[in-house]
């Protein structure tokens, strides 16, 4: 697990290693440890969760499968050296949005909705459209593979959280404020819509 990456750096010393990141007590060594195994494990879990989301009859089972996907994706973000996004994903998505979904599922759960048909009568057209889309993706990746740079970016001196914060409160300050306004509007909208009497 990527936690072991940090443990390895943490235990093995803080002097100049070519893959050292950070300074002082926050120094870490970014050595890949069993990367391939964990990549296939986590992406397999994510895709398995995705398949379960769209095929389960019971909405609560779908929600739990989505939680599995979200946690697997958080692990993938850790492998991509994005610990802050992984933490935000766990707190907001798995711990916030999914709780919201589960609440609403419990409120609108009907027994007879499980016994009806699960897929609507245009499912053939839907699957064909998705197949066409996947063909498009395949074509894009095959032709565009030469465009990616071969070397990954050398990580800067600051920790990842610091880099994200510098950008978030520097270049993207305006977007940040608008996002907070958006959340305010969403809160008010959700409360108004779910009230019995406005």
């Amino acid at each position, binding site marked *: 697990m990527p936690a*072991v990456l940090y443990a390895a750096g*943490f*235990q093995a010393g803080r002097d100049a290693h070519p893959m050292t990141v950070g300074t*002082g007590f*926050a120094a870490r060594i970014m050595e890949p440890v069993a990367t391939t195994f964990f990549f296939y494990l986590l992406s397999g879990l994510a895709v398995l969760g995705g398949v379960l989301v769209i095929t389960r009859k019971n909405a609560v089972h779908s929600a739990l499968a989505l939680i599995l996907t979200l946690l697997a994706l958080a692990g993938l973000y850790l492998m991509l050296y994005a610990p*802050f996004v992984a933490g935000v994903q766990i707190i907001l998505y*798995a*711990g*916030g949005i999914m709780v919201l979904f589960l609440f609403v599922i419990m409120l609108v759960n009907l027994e007879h909705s499980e016994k009806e048909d699960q897929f609507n009568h245009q499912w053939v057209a839907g699957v064909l459209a998705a197949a066409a889309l996947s063909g498009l993706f395949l074509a894009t990746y095959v032709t565009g593979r030469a465009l990616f740079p071969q070397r990954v970016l050398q990580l800067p001196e600051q920790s990842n959280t610091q880099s994200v914060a510098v950008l978030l409160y520097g270049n993207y300050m305006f977007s940040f404020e608008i996002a907070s306004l958006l959340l305010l509007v969403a809160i008010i909208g959700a409360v108004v819509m779910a009230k019995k009497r406005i």
Partner: protein
Amino acid sequence: MLDAIKAYLVSGSRTPGEAGSISASLVWTFVYILLIFLGLSVAVIAMNWLERKILAHMQVRLGPMRVGPHGLLQPIADALKLLIKEDITPTAADRWVFWMAPLFVVITAFTVFIVVPFGPTHAVTDMNIGVLFMLGVSSLSVLGVVMAGWASNSHYPLMGALRSSAQMVSYEIAMGLAVVSAVLMTSLNPTGTGTLSMIGIVQAQEAQHVWFVFKFFPLGLIAFFIFAVAMVAETNRAPFDLPEAESELTAGFHTEYSGFRWSLFFLAEYSAMIAVSSIAVTLWLGGWLRPFSDWLSGDTWDLVFSLIPGLTFLFLAGMCFYSTRRMPKHPSFRIQTAGLAGFGLTLAVIGLLLFVPPVRDRVQDIFWFTAKVAGFMYLYIWYRGTFPRYRFDQLMSVGWKVLLPIGIGVLVLTAIAGVFL
């Protein structure tokens, strides 16, 4: 692996990982995890006995006295009873979700301990985002509660789960704001950069020579107070325990669970209590730092404070021997008296062991951390014995209308104080 152990014992290094290679440090990570499991189990058993005894003494009665001397074997009897009880699954319950809910709650309660530091190098790992990880994993425990309530397919658990999860989500926000205030204070150290790593936060307190609870008085204290209240609500303990109160909801979301599954919920609740107390100690009370490390500094004071662990155990052994003398002299009490005397002897031996210099140096950090967390556990039990229960609407209004504005205010004032002071 044996070489790694031998290398650690002969070297003077403070942590096992420095003495070996990467595979050895993997092994030591697993050793730490095992130690945490064992320590938590012992702590939960001790908490069970302590809670019943302390509550009883606060209510002017004696508590369990029969099972062992002064009821010391009561938790073991409880554990045995729960293990051999019949495991009932309601027929209309959703089998997989019913099975998974206690698992989820226990896993999230234990996973928080990955980032909890018992010393400057005594943690399972030191993540760069330790605080974020802790907040995320405790927000995952809400999901376990919701699953438990829904899967039981019955009214009381469902209502209990909805109320409990609404309460936990509301107080998570206040907790997060208090935590952000503490993290903000770490950026005021001489190097100028803050950190989200738990060990980094305690080291920042060490570098700034002040525990964050006393920094920018009274801002640190108010932030600590918000966290202390929110953590009691987060773990569904008195006075915020309406969702699991027996007179209201027949035990709430774990009504339909029996035997070993219920003991998993119980284990998860106490582990979560210890986990959030450890977070509070790390963020505000200086983690493993000894008290008065600034005013009373120097070698002699270090020596005096380093004798305190041994003295604590000797004091406990003294209390055991005193109780042994007060035991009834009837022959049917002979085994109990002998047991209590043996327990006191074990405590005395541990206390004397803690006076030996090599052990004394290594045990300092762990002792101070554990002592502070034990203080928090006593506070939890004290709250349960003292405060009446909040009604649910009062509970939610306190979380949203009182703690949240105060949290925002403390954050803004801490930022202003940090810039201008």
